[in-house]
């Protein structure tokens, strides 16, 4: 099932993607969701469905409600109206945290915290071990996750000594260590140098190819259109939901970001 469309593109996009996804279970299901921190809604009447294995990017101008949408679908906020489900369960009641890997914008708030990459990645195992200690098998999973993101040489390095791109790789490794089915990334490349951004998206592409569902909230329109297979354009309400190739030339792009945005997205405009 796909989202309730508002733009002209959405019906077409629905048909194109529904066919290939019809046998995939739904990972995220928002139905008629509205939410506001005050009486003014930040997002209104949002209906979105994301199926297992999809690579979806949410884009929108500043203040469009991207991060709010992310918090709603992760169960960190409760909708004022409508329903939000994660893996078929009410998102606010969802308790299988190991299935979701979360990478924040500049995660890890303490500037000087002496914590190594391995200690960060092992947090991914905490939902599995609860109050217990990590077993030898858990540590093998941790080391494999570090290896997967190409950070083995940095495993015992303090995370504060790493570049922005390296840190974000460590946070992805944490999600992998948790054996997450869904990877949610909130503007993960803010403040990351261009070369590291390319390597970062290469990593996301390979993880998606292995079957992980990727939900990316991103400001970099060109990166989104190059890597994600589906784009949701948000500005309080959904302007566009469809294949990323169609987004670059859509009216929704100009409507959300203004004329000239096509060039930022790598389109023809």
């Amino acid at each position, binding site marked *: 099932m796909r989202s309730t469309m508002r733009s002209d593109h959405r019906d077409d996009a629905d048909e194109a993607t529904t066919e290939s996804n019809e046998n995939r279970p739904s990972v995220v299901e928002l139905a008629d969701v509205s939410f506001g921190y005050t009486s003014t809604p930040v997002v209104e009447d949002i209906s979105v469905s994301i199926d297992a294995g999809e690579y979806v990017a949410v884009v929108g101008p500043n203040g469009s409600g991207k991060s709010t949408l992310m918090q709603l679908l992760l169960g*960190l906020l409760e909708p004022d109206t409508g329903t939000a489900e994660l893996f078929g369960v009410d998102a606010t009641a969802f308790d299988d945290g190991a299935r979701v890997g*979360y990478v924040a914008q500049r995660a890890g708030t303490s500037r000087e*915290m*002496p914590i190594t990459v391995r*200690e960060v990645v092992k947090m991914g195992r905490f939902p599995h071990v609860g109050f217990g200690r990590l077993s030898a098998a858990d540590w093998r999973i941790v080391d494999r996750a570090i290896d997967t993101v190409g*950070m083995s040489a940095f495993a015992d390095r303090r995370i504060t000594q790493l570049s922005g791109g390296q840190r974000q790789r460590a946070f992805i490794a944490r999600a992998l260590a948790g054996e997450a089915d869904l990877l949610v990334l909130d503007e993960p490349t803010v403040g990351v140098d261009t070369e590291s951004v390319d390597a970062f998206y290469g990593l996301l592409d390979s993880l998606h190819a292995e079957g992980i569902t990727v939900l990316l909230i991103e400001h970099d329109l060109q990166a989104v259109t190059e890597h994600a297979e589906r784009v949701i354009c948000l500005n309080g309400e959904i302007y566009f939901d469809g294949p990323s190739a169609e987004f670059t030339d859509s009216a929704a792009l100009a409507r959300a970001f203004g004329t000239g945005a096509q060039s930022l997205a790598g389109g023809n405009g």
Partner: protein
Amino acid sequence: MTLAFAGGVYEAFVPVLELWYWLLTQLYHLTGLELISPEYTFMYRAILVGLCVGVIAPLIGTFLVHRQLALIGDALAHTAFAGVAVGLFLNGVFELGVSPYLTAVVVAVIAALLIELISEATDAYNDVSMAIVLSTGFALGTVLISLNAGGLAVGINQYLFGNLSTVSAENAVIMLGLFSVIVATVALTRNQLLYVTFDETAAAVSGLPVAWYNRIMVMLTALVVVGAMQIMGVILVAAMLVVPVAGATQVSRSFSESLLVSIVLAELAVVLGIGISYYAGATAGGVIVLVAVGIYVLSVLAGKVRQTAAPDETRELDSISHD
């Protein structure tokens, strides 16, 4: 007396205290150190309390400092002072015979929860709620003391500045109880506390009830503050939560190492501080903090030297595995 609190728990810890007396007596016979002469058993208790503080303060302080809550200890110490005043007031007016440290535990824990409640209910910054609770606690303490000034003013100095000679057997047992609760709770919840400290949002996404772990953390802080208050005093107690941790952060390569190093630095400050204060006749709390700050300065220098001597850390990333 502490009967209301201790009961059977008190009896359980008495053999531990007796074992400690025996150990230090043996050590005295070996070394002849006047500091641990059997004639001065109050020092045995003060050293025991000091060593316990040297473990639990940096243990909790490590989580607080990295959550940028370094000053919460100060706020809770001021409310613990109010708790002491409540205990002294009750004893003075109603002759209840309750230990002021027990009323301090109760008031500090309530204050700890209030800090969280104010932050959650009003969206205020943590330091705003801390400032409100700190001021309220100290105001309440001063009012209660002024209401019964004749009986209270004399004894209040020991709580403000700490005093080695006033650590009674009951208070040492209270400390052993607090020590057990704090160490056991951190041992049980270390994974969760680390996750919440490092990345609160990711911890919430992983299913942890973050608000509850925040409450556990501030309540443990309240217990540490009351325990440490006996020898550190209200005014200096927060230093033991922060200074050893700040020193350990400079020289440690990992979080687990920083926990261990901060405890070692704190114990060093406690042992040296008690020793110096005994022979110099100075207030133990002040000397311990000054020694801790001296150790911190050395740690900063050691950290800078290590940073300068570190090899070039600009290695390329490994390639991404596709196994």
